[in-house]
């Protein structure tokens, strides 16, 4: 199907990500970023048996959904995805290609951009404009500065967005489902040089904190592993996930996949409750995008209070039981 091109505004192609028929939440965030550009938006997704995923994506206010269905794409491989999306991008001729900055994107998107000889601006946190051209906001120097990066040269330009930079609930839904079209691809034998083995999980209880709506995070103020119980009760009362700052996971009190910060997860839940966390910058960069931050700390000068919306100066061993009691009441 030949795609027309908008006369004035840039057309954005969003590459969504799915696994076993389940869409990655961050793909909605990339769609929100695309909608903010104000021009036509299309979305493409690759895999096998994509019927349900296509229908799900069609609910968004987009021009069309492309499903790139092929048995060789059932399991993700960088070679397979580069080949498939190179064909999609060549055919759709978008001005911009947006992706969520997932692990998968980190692997195949640079190769895809290099294959097409186009720039890739990775891990952006916002969209804007510079001299009437789109520009993308990108943190530099560990978040000390943000730079507006304006791509130059022939289109398309590839851009990926940090998880949590846009809110999936800001997605504009269409009045009617968008048309879903299958994009036929041929994958020549020998294209895929990787052999896919059965997926394995490094951690026993892998948890994806980036998808949590509420997080109760605990830091050194908890003093001992045996005190984690009260944090877990508070999390249960709030329907929240438990997370921690580095020292807690480093001591092995909580698994590493619950660590928030520069060497752990970056999260942006609706509620982030920080208990006994001083707020080292390494932790702040992983949670400062949260909508509401509540901090409990004994030290009134702790840097966590600089980012908190609500702060309680006090001992978490007094404050937490009181919150639990209030929630139970």
């Amino acid at each position: 199907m030949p795609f027309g091109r908008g006369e004035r505004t840039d057309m954005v192609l969003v590459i969504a990500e799915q696994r076993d028929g389940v869409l990655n939440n961050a793909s909605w965030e990339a769609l929100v970023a695309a909608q903010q550009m104000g021009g036509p938006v299309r979305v493409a997704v690759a895999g096998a048996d994509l019927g349900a995923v296509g229908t799900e994506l069609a609910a968004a206010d987009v021009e069309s959904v492309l499903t790139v269905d092929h048995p060789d794409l059932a399991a993700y491989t960088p070679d397979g995805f580069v080949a498939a999306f190179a064909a999609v991008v060549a055919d759709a001729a978008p001005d911009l290609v947006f992706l969520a900055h997932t692990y998968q994107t980190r692997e195949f998107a640079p190769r895809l951009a290099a294959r097409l000889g186009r720039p890739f601006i990775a891990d952006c946190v916002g969209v804007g404009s510079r001299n009437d051209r789109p520009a993308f906001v990108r943190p530099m120097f560990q978040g000390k500065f943000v730079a507006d990066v304006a791509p130059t040269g022939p289109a398309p330009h590839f851009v990926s967005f940090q998880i949590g930079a846009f809110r999936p609930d800001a997605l504009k839904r269409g009045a009617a489902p968008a048309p879903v079209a299958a994009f036929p691809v041929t994958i020549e034998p020998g294209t895929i040089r990787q052999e896919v083995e059965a997926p394995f999980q490094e951690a026993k209880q892998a948890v994806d904190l980036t998808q949590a709506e509420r997080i109760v995070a605990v830091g050194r103020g908890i003093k001992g592993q045996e005190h984690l119980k009260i944090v877990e009760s508070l999390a249960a009362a709030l329907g929240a996930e438990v997370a921690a700052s580095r020292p807690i996971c480093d001591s092995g009190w909580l698994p590493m996949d619950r660590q928030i910060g520069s060497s752990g997860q970056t999260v942006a839940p609706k509620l982030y409750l920080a208990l006994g966390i001083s707020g080292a910058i390494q932790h702040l960069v992983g949670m400062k995008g949260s909508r509401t931050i509540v901090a409990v700390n004994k030290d009134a000068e702790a840097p966590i209070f600089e980012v908190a919306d609500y702060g309680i100066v006090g001992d978490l061993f007094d404050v937490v039981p009181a919150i639990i009691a209030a929630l139970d009441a």
Partner: protein
Amino acid sequence: MERETLEVDVLVVGGGPAGLSAAIRLARLQQQEGGDPLAVAVLEKSRQSGSHMLSGAVLDPSGLDALLPDWKERGAPVETPVRDDRIYYLTAKSRFRAPITPPPLRNHGNYVISLNRFVRWLAEQAEAEGVDVFTGFAGTEVLYEGDRVVGVRTGDRGLDKEGRPKGAFEPGVDIRAAVTIFADGVRGNLTKSLVRRHGLDAAAPQTYAIGIKELWQIPPEREAPGTVVHTLGYPLRHEEFGGGFIYVLPEGRVAIGLVVGLDYRDPRFDPHMAFQRFKQHPLVAGLLAGGEMTRYGAKALPEGGWYAIPRCHLDGALIVGDAAGFLNSMRLKGIHLAMHSGIHAADAAFAAVRAGDVSAAQLVRYRELINHGGIRRELYPVRNVHQAFGAGLAAGTAVAGLAWLTNGRWPARPLSSEPGHERLASLAGYYPGGPADPDTPSNAVKVDRALTFDKLTNVHYSGTRHDEDQPVHLLVRDTDICRTRCREEYGNPCVRFCPANVYEMVDDGTGNGRRLQINASNCVHCKTCDIMDPYQIIDWVPPEGGGGPEYEGM
């Protein structure tokens, strides 16, 4: 376990100025002389070339002139000539400008550079000459045939905290070479093992300093690019050797740093705190007011000079750059000497490979080139200066002056020297008046997170990153000493001399003591702990390749 093997003619371990100069020189020799193709590979532990490079830096371009005379046409990032050169002696509140800049510190003809950018550019030149630069791979073990060095083994990737293979485990690769050039930097882990195994020790033990540096962004009109300021005195006392520097780069970028000899006596002294005090001095605070700190880093430097350089040639191997100690501490410069040593090593290695003889008897050519060239001419006359500073600032200045006046004829023999860590006094010895709080630095300042920072915040701006789930790369042979003897005798000085908050003494949970906690992923690869630990029980080994600081623009 299956291990891959790669064969090259010359392997360079370490992609800094010395290693890359050696690699470029080898490639060019091959082009000039012709003959069989020469396979040259460089191993570099950082993710990208230049990422672990930290220096002031003022570059004496003589090494670059010798290596790539057309460096200007090649677009070397060497663009800011030194235009103004000042020295101050500081007291807590005042400054005294030296009426003349002593000749060793005159920087006419030199350039203020970012070593990170310079080395990244050097790596590009090397790759353009056909050298394979493998970034993200650290050498962890020297390979031998008998006593002859035949290459190195790179580190395993994908081990978990307990050293068990994770899903993506890849064993290290054996890289075999006719000649291996060790350019693994100050206190390099492989050079350390070579010196031990082959007894390469020099006439005097190597002495070191730690350099701590920040990059700031200030209003560009405040100070002209190319301004170079060195300071003596405050925040250091007479018993501490070192000084501060301010180097102004274009566009309002300023490098601020403090170098402190790792032979201080006070066990409660904290070099990072001294650096905070340096920034609080009116001379520095005025320059930085309203600016922003954008980068942080720390690195040890070898200061022992000529007599501390070990034998640098052995069967199948050569040692170059900071790993060997080619640094002129009186001029505060080592990049050019590193480059010259790399060039000499390449010349010796090339001749050896072509002659089919890589024995020490053939590679001794390297020593001859050093002895007859600029390196000895520069280092020999100042061979006793650092040792004299061990006796205090006044004595050091006097010897430095005499050495310069007599062109090095006096003093003639090595002054006595001892490894820096042996000068560290015990708490009881340094504070005879009574028990000193082992947990508070004697030079503590309260940080304001605008001009002064705590170590943890600073570490963030070093960009350092390591996979958390990997074996700890700081091997402490006996952590019992930490909570018992060291706590008592020195008050755990590692907590203070580490500039990156790697070492912490935390409550051991039993309520009656403390235990050592190693935050290995904070490590900025400065090597200070390996050097300064009073019991010499810390071994720094490379973490998984690619981990470490990101000194972009430093």
